């Protein structure tokens, strides 16, 4: 981290603008609104970047795009304050330009899509780095938002980032999570979008007092798009998916009996008894090499 300090500490005059996009989450069991798991991890990544760079080298802001106004003390307000409790002074609510009228009330709101709003805002603010969670927890949760932003802004998007190693104003070096706990190093040209999934380090706890102190400021920009397609969606509580049954394709009575009465198979393996330790070890090494797990 000490080594990174120098690479991140760039020209002190123009700090690196980092935006963290946050959304409303939903607890998987109780269904209550909360900070979204992946978005909180994204914010944690930004906070780590801010901490590892020189003071003032990174200017971090968190945005939440909302089609409707959020009343103080409402459930949405409480959930968004979860992010403030992670150590933010303020959170920006990106709301639509409503010509001459207040933003839509939450009651009779049509289904809207907020990504055009964010595109407009991002074009205006022109940050170098945007970090967000990979998939939302409320609404459709399609995971399409970062891709749509990247497409319409023409920025590169990398998914599944677990750590930002260095960021020098023109390029970003980051670690990407692969399956089986492996990591890959990527170098991305800025400005860029980075999305985070559940492989990233867990987010810190939200401090209640900090969450109360923090400020939700509203910023109007852009227009909402009415999402007519999404209005046709049918939403139902998740049905439990049936387990796949083991299909028995025996052609004879004997095979059917064997399949029904079979115990866990045994004795299929190779067995080395009465060999020296060297021979046994050599055989094990041979198998490990065939499977390709030795590096």
């Amino acid at each position, binding site marked *: 981290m000490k080594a990174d300090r120098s690479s991140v500490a760039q020209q002190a005059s123009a700090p690196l603008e980092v935006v963290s996009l946050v959304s409303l989450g939903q607890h998987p069991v109780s269904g209550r609104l909360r900070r979204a798991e992946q978005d909180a991890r994204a914010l944690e990544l930004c906070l780590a970047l801010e901490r590892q760079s020189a003071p003032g080298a990174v200017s971090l802001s968190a945005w939440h795009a909302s089609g409707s106004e959020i009343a103080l003390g409402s459930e949405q307000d409480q959930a968004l304050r979860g992010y403030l409790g992670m150590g933010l002074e303020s959170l920006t609510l990106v709301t639509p330009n409503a010509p001459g009228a207040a933003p839509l009330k939450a009651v009779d709101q049509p289904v809207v899509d907020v990504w055009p709003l964010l595109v407009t805002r991002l074009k205006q603010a022109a940050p170098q780095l945007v970090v967000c969670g990979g998939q939302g927890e409320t609404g459709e949760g399609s995971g399409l938002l970062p891709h749509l932003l990247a497409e319409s802004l023409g920025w590169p998007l990398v998914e599944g980032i677990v750590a930002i190693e260095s960021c020098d104003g023109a390029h970003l070096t980051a670690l990407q999570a692969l399956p089986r706990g492996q990591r890959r190093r990527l170098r991305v040209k800025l400005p860029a979008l980075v999305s985070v999934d559940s492989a990233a380090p867990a987010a810190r706890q939200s401090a209640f007092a900090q969450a109360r102190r923090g400020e939700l400021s509203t910023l109007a920009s852009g227009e909402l798009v009415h999402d007519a397609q999404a209005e046709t*969606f049918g939403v139902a509580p998740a049905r439990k998916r049936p387990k796949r049954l083991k299909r028995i394709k025996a052609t004879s009575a004997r095979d059917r009996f064997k399949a029904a009465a079979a115990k866990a198979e045994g004795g299929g393996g190779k067995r080395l008894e009465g060999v020296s330790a060297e021979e046994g070890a050599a055989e094990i090494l041979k198998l490990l090499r065939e499977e390709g797990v030795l590096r």
Partner: protein
Amino acid sequence: MTIPVDPQATERESLPRRDPRLEQQARNRLHPQHLIALQALGRGAAAPQERWMGPKGVTRRDPHVGHFIAANGRKRIDRSGRSGPAAAGAGQPAVVAKARVLPLVEIASPAFLIAVVPDMTGGRLSSHDRDVLGLARQIADADPAHQGAVLAITFGTLREDGDAADSVGLGAAGADRWLHFADTLHDGYAPLAQLAELEAIDGKLAPRLWLLPESRTGGGERGRRLGARLLCRGDALARPSGNAYQLDGELAAIGRGELVEVSVTGRSGNGQQDLTRPLTRIVLCEAECAEPVEDVRHAALPLEWEAASTARAVPDVIEDLGPVAVDPSAIALGEAEFILSAGNGIRDWDGFHRAASLLGATEGASRVAVDDGFMPRARQVGATGTWVTARVYVAVGISGAIQHLQGIQRCDKVVAINTDGGCDMVKRADLSVIGDAGAILASLCQQLEAERSAVSDASAAGQAPAAPSTSSSASSATLAADAA
């Protein structure tokens, strides 16, 4: 005095005479005179006779002799008469073990195409890929009068371990056409180049539907990138249906291009809700969305294709700097690929830890080893610990309690090192070495170190082999898709 010669006596002598007592002794295997009787009847050392004439002139047959072992493993008597008593190998069970050749399905001129981009993790088809190909197959075969074809698109280096005609098993999984981009660029992270190729395919071949596995290993990302690209080009039908697990409605309508007739259901809202929507052109399918293809194989004809020029022109905004060495002990036990696990049979714990670090394996332990305080609780494998998914699991000194065996159910290869050859772990293992665990681990370390020092000497001498570079290749076949 002359003995009156019966004129018919000689004739009577030449008649075959049977000795019923001898025959009875020959039939009775428990009779003390059995072998002598067999000798006397002339079938002593020879194979037992399969059929003979019974005392009442009826052909008798020994069911223990004239059988063969059928393909299902059961004893069968051939009554067709093709193998008489003189047939070669009669009496010896001939085990018929012939690989079943699946019937080949060829679709010459498909009415439409269903495109599938399998993940090919590690160059092989995963079970998730097979499920998605199975779903594509169902859609393509929904209307026999309007037969569609499944196009599989693969990237990067593939493992070839099938037969020559179907080297990666795509045909057996249900693909009729195959487009492969073999550029080594795709072995790393090249999402933009792949997106350019997929977009070009969408433009030229116009598949009715794109099916991708909803996975973290590439499928979900590819589908969303393609969806966002096509959406921004103004194709509202390209909005991906994520986490899809069920298609309802008449599947034949997809072939006719009436996607609205079919609805797709998928999870949303943090897995708490089911979202049902009209089918869109890109579907990201969950695992077990359909049954994989069985009993037939398809042709998987390689398509002739020129790599999109746009793919070459993709600016290198995302640069892959290669994999990073990861500390194996930092990998979560549940997703580790290679686990060295210790049990009650370990005496030399330092040797065990040294072996794990040399092999680059994640450490695991049985409950006993954890209870005795040799390993932390987080390293416990089994029903009460972690259910592991390792590809290779080496159990050292673990006898294999049922709870432990449950925990390693999903492991591919299990190696057991144990002093007790009769324990359950040895029965489960693919390779078991019966012997002292400490000595075997020490020998393992010694052999590895010797090898590595030899390799480092060789590389110091500058004999590092250069990696051959492969380029994009596509062999010839014609696509006769007259899709609208």
